[in-house]
């Protein structure tokens, strides 16, 4: 799997390269600014790109804007955005095209190499990887305003948040140490309670849940 990395801090860039290579990825290019990132994805057409939100020269949300540009130019290009902090505002912008194949994670998540590379693979395969913190805030907000969310059982809410992060039934089952059938039952119940169209397709399901929470 070929990756392009955009990260301006040398230590972190180096760490990312080592981590990804250790898990069997091939790093096609590692750049340190938004402009170079765009040309790198244009020429390398990677399977997935990993971008830091804050990049030179502006040191604002340069990386995010470059990612959105790249997605507009190369529709469906899987992109995982890393950031020192997460904003729902940015999550919405990344999800806005409804195509999936996006990730938005705190930089802290690279500390757990297995989980992180799992997220990178998921995005490369067209799935989503939303940071648990984004989901937690989405859920807190939805829970504060009365709505169908109140009808979910604690377990169902757990399943819902893992699903919103972008995990498949199998991954959720492994995480909660239950059978996949049990997870499927919870999922069906959640979709009924929230009045959402059930779907067998993992990605479409995740996007539906995110859209529901983001209302």
């Amino acid at each position, binding site marked *: 799997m070929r990756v392009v990395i955009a990260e301006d801090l040398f230590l972190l860039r180096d760490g990312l390269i080592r981590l990804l290579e250790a898990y069997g990825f091939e790093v096609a290019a590692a750049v340190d600014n938004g402009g170079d990132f765009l040309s790198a994805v244009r020429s390398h057409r990677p399977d997935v790109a990993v971008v830091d*939100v*804050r990049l030179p020269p502006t040191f*604002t*949300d340069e990386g995010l804007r470059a990612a959105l540009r790249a997605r507009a130019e190369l529709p469906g290009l899987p992109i995982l955005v890393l950031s*020192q*902090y997460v*904003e*729902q*505002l*940015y999550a*919405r912008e990344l999800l806005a095209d409804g195509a999936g194949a996006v990730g938005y994670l705190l*930089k*802290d998540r690279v*500390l*757990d190499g297995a989980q992180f590379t799992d997220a990178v693979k998921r995005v490369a395969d067209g799935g989503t990887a939303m940071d648990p913190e984004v989901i937690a*805030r989405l859920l*807190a*907000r939805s829970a*504060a*305003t*009365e709505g169908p969310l109140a009808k979910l059982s604690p377990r169902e809410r757990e399943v819902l948040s893992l699903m919103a992060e972008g995990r498949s039934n199998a991954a959720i089952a492994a995480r909660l140490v239950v059978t996949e059938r049990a997870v499927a039952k919870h999922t069906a119940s959640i979709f009924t309670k929230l009045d959402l169209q059930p779907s067998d397709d993992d990605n479409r399901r995740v996007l539906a849940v995110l859209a529901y929470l983001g209302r």
Partner: protein
Amino acid sequence: MHGVVVAAGGGARRARPGQGLGGRLAALPRALALAGLLVTGAVLLAVLLAPLLLAVVGLGQFLKYQLNHGVNFDSQDVRDLLGLLVGLAFCRFGLPIALLAVRRLAMLTRRLSAGWCGVAIGEAYAPAPVPDRPGSRKVSYQRRMSWLLGDASTWRDLEWLVISALVGWVLLLAPVAMLCVGVVTFIVPALGSLPVFHGLEGLATPPAFPGNTPFVLFLIGVALAGGGLWIAPTALRGYGGMARLVLAPSREAELARRVEQLAQTRRETLDTGAAELRRIERDLHDGAQARLVAMGLTLDAAGRLIDTDPAAARALLYEARDTSARALAELRDLVRGIHPPVLADRGLADAIRALALDSPLRARVTGSLPGRPPAPVESAAYFAVSELLANVAKHSGGGTAEVDLRYSDGALRISVSDDGAGGADPSRGTGLSGVARRLAAFDGVLVLSSPVGGPTVINMEVPCALS
């Protein structure tokens, strides 16, 4: 001095007196109301002067009587001394109250002048003295009096009472008088001569002058009444202008007040800044720094164990990883509190949108800015909105909030409203006065309107330039 401004019911906005018929008609009762205020002022002046006069005359009479009749004491002395006593008692107990009543009257005049006459008049009262002892509300007579009498504004207010009583009424009553004379003296008799209005005949006798035909009388009456109506707004403006001439603070007083205000906001800003730095230092010291030390120790222990007990070493390494994750989370929170990254990235409007998304309320953000305010203003405005939204979620009992931001007339204007129960009270420490204080450093103001039963609307205004 600069706390939360609680919006007054009528609003003290400046409005030009209306030029249309409605405006002219409205000007008449307003002139009458102002005339009533003027009479109140005159009465107050009399109340103020009479006892003083009584005291002085009493003393004078007493002394004169003593000189003329040799030193003795009789009923005449009792009368004179009683006058003196009443006068002194008034000075002790009544004077501060009367002076404050004068001040109230002057403040009302200022407000009405802005609202009705279209003339805004500034004020520059010295700040009220602090209580003698913290916790009590008592201020000694001497300090209270030196506060009142030492304030040039008090003397201006008194001056205004005298001047308005002497000449103000001419301006106020002229239009009303013209209208009344026109109608009663001319129009009514003129109409009375027509058969249709026969009953009016006896109400007033037509003035006798050569050529006083009903038609001429009618014309004169209409001209007088119309003239009264016509000049009413002008007379009101004239009255307002006169009030400003007397009541407006001198440039010196205004500057003195400005200096005092600047000194206070500077002091508060420096205090807040210093406190903030101390907090950050403490947070770093107790948080991230301590965790890094712990991490170093754990890594060192892992290094020592790696050959002899790889399993234990691995456990320690994972522990170090978790510690670093916690340090990161703490640093992230700290950074958010210093300067939220989204504010730096996207500017105020998007940062407030991000706040709304994070708020447990259904918060809607409307409006936009044509540019970016200076960074300190942006930051103050962001934290103000953040605080207000948190307030709404905590205290209002409402579920939705609306934030509107725009830029007009050289000022950033943000309003935060909610559908809660209202009755917000800045004195009960809901953080409102803190917000107002921080905005005051930029000459910003916070106006709160929160009737019991809601809705609560908070308007903030910070003068600034956009880039």
